[in-house]
């Protein structure tokens, strides 16, 4: 954070600026600070156009592609660092090899991220010059820092990657690991800076009624939604990065020529899925935090998001997240086939599947429906007699907590399937875990039912925090019990890596594609919630594309973006495959004389 601290003036001044950093007009700004122009009032004529090119669609697609690749290249070094550290701690070289393979995929993706970032800047300057100028004046220091950080990150990444086999053993390995840490620090700082520009447009800070900026750089960066987005994007990026390298491993598994290769990529796929799911579990909580902060910033924005024209998007989101959970669980269940002791847990899988499917169905049950008059008459009102009660937020909160809990249960069974417990208190430990799950599930249900159906609308979502805490307590306590109970446990038999049906690998592809589409959709929501504003409530979008598009239009753009991205990702996978091939072309080169 040392770069950011450079923008921070004396603590008091900074705090004062931050206090003033709301969208509330600040007419009392000192005249000496008014060196920034007011927010321009633009008309359609102020937006340059190129015949046959829709500026918004171009910027939308380029920005989204940049974000997808950016998310991937920020995330992968995080778990590469952890995997490398695990390798150093356990001295098992397979971890080091896997970490190297992950970073190898990142190298090409990094170049594409930079290219797309440059293209995005050009598009913004070309199609939205006034907006770019307005933001560039406010963020000039942070944009300059961004460029410097980008050079620093590139340098560290190349040393980290190309020096991998050079910096091996002893202190050299520590130097390499430190480079990994630096790489992550630079990557995250870059993301946080870019997040500040984005969130400033949603929750502008230190602006007066005319949109004149009267704060310092830190006040603009540290706007209301900056931290919630930082947290949400960091967690989401890890989950996303895991899913993309999972797809890479699945692709390599399906193309494997021998048992060893299949075993290696099966193991890699398992780890990638573990990373994706590990980060996916806390993601809904980060999402709730972000949404709650949006409400806190502007109730108007919050209600438009959850109860206005964007509300149906959350039903689609539920379907997509449901697909993520189901595919991740399916992969885990298939993975139990690697173990000889899995038969002890197999009969539980069908019950877990039922809970997951029911939770999924509850999650995507809509509350209010858009109906014709005759449909309304047939239904007897806007809500379905039985299913209407499942549409409200507490029911969905309850469902998502069960999705998370039972996914964890799948993972716990997977971990246990190849172990014989040896401690004398195993029965007590198991009983404690069962009690924990049952009591927790009852608590989650009661909280959801009470707040959902016996309180007024304003405090209906009050159940979410205690429900989340219950889920976290169950998982954390259960992990501790399991860790103690299975310490020194014996393996039933060596795990048969590679003993996976090919269909299981498609679960990993489903995970990656669903994640990509989901990110595209939620990226639209985050941006679209500003509606007809470039900078919310301050700088109006005067372009012909200022309207909020319908869902079918959004689905078209997100789908096109996803297909382009997946094509580019396959290109990256192909490059990393061919880079390892060495063809000996006999007779092509002149024989060298000794």
């Amino acid at each position, binding site marked *: 954070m040392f770069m950011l601290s450079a923008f921070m003036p004396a603590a008091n001044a900074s705090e004062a600026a931050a206090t003033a950093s709301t969208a509330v007009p600040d007419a009392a700004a000192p005249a000496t600070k008014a060196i920034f122009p007011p927010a321009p009032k633009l008309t359609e004529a102020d937006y340059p156009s190129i015949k046959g090119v829709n500026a918004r669609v171009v910027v939308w697609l380029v920005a989204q592609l940049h974000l997808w690749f950016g998310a991937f290249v920020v995330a992968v070094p995080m778990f590469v660092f952890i995997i490398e550290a695990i390798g150093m701690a356990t001295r098992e070289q397979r971890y080091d090899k896997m970490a190297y393979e992950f970073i190898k995929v990142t190298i090409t993706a990094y170049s594409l991220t930079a290219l797309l970032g440059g293209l995005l800047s050009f598009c913004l300057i070309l199609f939205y010059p006034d907006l770019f100028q307005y933001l560039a004046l406010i963020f000039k220091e942070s944009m300059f820092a961004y460029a410097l950080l980008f050079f620093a990150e590139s340098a560290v990444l190349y040393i980290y990657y190309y020096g991998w086999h050079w910096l091996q053993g002893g202190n050299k390995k520590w130097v390499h690991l430190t480079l990994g840490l630096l790489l992550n620090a630079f990557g995250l700082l870059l993301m946080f800076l870019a997040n500040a520009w984005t969130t400033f447009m949603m929750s502008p800070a230190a602006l007066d009624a005319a949109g004149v900026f009267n704060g310092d750089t830190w006040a603009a960066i540290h706007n209301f939604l900056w931290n919630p987005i930082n947290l949400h994007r960091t967690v989401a990026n890890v989950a996303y990065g895991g899913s993309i390298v999972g797809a890479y491993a699945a692709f390599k598994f399906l193309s494997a020529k021998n048992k060893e290769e299949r075993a290696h990529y099966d193991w890699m796929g398992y780890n990638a899925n573990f990373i994706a799911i590990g980060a996916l579990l806390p993601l809904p909580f980060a999402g709730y935090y972000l949404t709650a902060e949006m409400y806190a910033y502007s109730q108007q924005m919050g209600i438009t998001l959850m109860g206005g024209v964007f509300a149906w998007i959350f039903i689609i989101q539920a379907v997509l997240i449901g697909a993520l959970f189901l595919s991740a669980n399916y992969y885990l269940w298939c993975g139990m086939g690697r173990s000889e002791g899995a038969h002890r847990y197999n009969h539980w899988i069908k019950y877990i599947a039922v809970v997951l499917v029911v939770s999924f169905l509850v999650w995507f049950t809509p509350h209010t429906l*858009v109906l014709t008059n005759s449909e309304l008459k047939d239904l007897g009102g806007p809500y379905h007699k039985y299913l209407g009660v499942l549409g409200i937020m507490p029911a969905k909160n309850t469902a998502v907590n069960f999705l998370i809990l039972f996914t964890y249960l799948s993972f716990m069974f997977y971990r246990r399937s190849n172990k014989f417990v040896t401690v004398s208190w195993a029965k007590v430990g198991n009983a404690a875990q069962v009690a924990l799950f049952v009591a927790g599930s009852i608590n989650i249900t009661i909280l959801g039912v009470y707040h959902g159906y016996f309180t007024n609308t*304003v405090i209906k979502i009050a159940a979410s925090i205690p429900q989340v805490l219950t889920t976290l307590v169950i998982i954390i306590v259960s992990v501790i019990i399991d860790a103690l109970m299975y310490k020194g446990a014996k393996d039933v038999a060596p795990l048969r890596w590679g003993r996976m049906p090919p269909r299981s690998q*498609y679960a990993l592809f489903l995970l990656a594609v*669903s994640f990509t589409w989901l990110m595209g959709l939620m990226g639209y929501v985050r941006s679209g919630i500003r509606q*007809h504003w470039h900078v919310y409530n301050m700088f109006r979008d005067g372009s012909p594309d200022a309207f909020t598009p319908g869902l*079918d239009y959004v689905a078209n753009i997100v789908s096109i973006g996803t297909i382009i991205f997946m094509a580019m990702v396959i290109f990256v996978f192909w490059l990393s495959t061919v880079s390892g091939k060495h063809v000996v072309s006999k007779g092509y080169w002149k024989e060298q004389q000794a």
Partner: protein
Amino acid sequence: MTNFIKVCIFSLLTVGAFWGYSSFGIPQIKPAPPPVEAKVDLGSMTMEKFIALGAELFDGKGDCTLCHNEMGRAPMLEKAVADAEKTLKSPAYKGTAKTVEEYLYESSVSPSVYVVPGFGKKGTNDTVSPMPDATGSSVGLTKIELAAVIAYLQDLSGSEVTVQIPTMDASAEGAESAKSKECE
């Protein structure tokens, strides 16, 4: 190569499924276009038309029904006049309004002057209202539009409409003052 094709087809089918569900499985709502400044013809304005304009703004540009609805986020406004009369007599009220009309105006532009118990921002003990200034940039009602909304609320409550239709002079004055504010 076979696996490559299979993976591509699978990915395309997955994208197609999400696209199809979003395009055909979800009701397509056409979002309202960005609000435009309505040109009010004050010359031919009658009280009936003025109230109708207020009703239109209440449901449309004003975004009032986003919160003032049966969901309980903000007080219902069918009895706004009766509620305002009670509030004006209440010792808890510390505002400057003397009449219902003034109170409705004050509540719209300075909602935190008096917050109806139970409707304040969380953690503020009903001292801060979550409602934005109706004439501020997020809602952006002009003074004439706000007057129309107040007339509508008085009419909705079944009370006498005390709001006067602004004259052409007042309208020009309002526009001038808004212009000079922009230049400051």
